[in-house]
């Protein structure tokens, strides 16, 4: 009974992570400029990878595997926002123009 519940919880977490990763991919492909895309991609990356890793830790066979997945979770939660910040900062200093909208005051 308990094993079945643990399996269901782990599978649900993995599927939820995949859904968030798909949202991130859609944002990466569809949004109008780099800053919007980085916003969608890094946020959904951190949440989706975090949920998938959490599900993996629930499904893992041994405690050591679960611990390593927790280490990976900590890595993702630190690395994804840092990478996104460094990347958008670099793009700003390199002169990538932000999207101003498609209204009457300009746009691209």
């Amino acid at each position: 009974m308990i094993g079945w519940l643990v399996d269901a919880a782990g599978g649900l977490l993995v599927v939820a992570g995949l859904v968030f990763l798909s949202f991130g991919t859609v944002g990466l492909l569809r949004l109008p400029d780099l800053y919007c895309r980085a916003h969608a991609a890094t946020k959904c990356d951190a949440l989706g990878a975090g949920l998938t890793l959490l599900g993996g830790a629930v499904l893992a066979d041994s405690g050591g595997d679960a611990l390593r997945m927790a280490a990976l979770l900590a890595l993702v939660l630190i690395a994804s926002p840092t990478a996104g910040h460094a990347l958008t900062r670099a793009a700003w200093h390199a002169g990538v123009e932000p999207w101003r909208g498609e209204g009457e005051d300009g746009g691209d």
Partner: protein
Amino acid sequence: MTLLLWIAVFALLLNSLACLWRVVAGPSLADRILGVNVIATNTMLVLVLLSILREQGFWLDIAIVYGLLGFTLTLVASRLVETGRLRFREGAR
């Protein structure tokens, strides 16, 4: 559960393929780096799911190294873009 995890692996691979479009098309260099970053995360998750599917722990060590390498790659590449040492050919930023 095994079937679900295999489906998850292939969904992640499809996700990576879709992100590859941003790497190929993305107008600025930073767009390409962003796409590679997302693909690196997806690959790391594929390795994690394979460790559960194959019931072998060493995949997780590979996943940790891969995650750290992807993070370092993004940081170094964005640093090079920021200081102007990494440029793209004319017509693109």
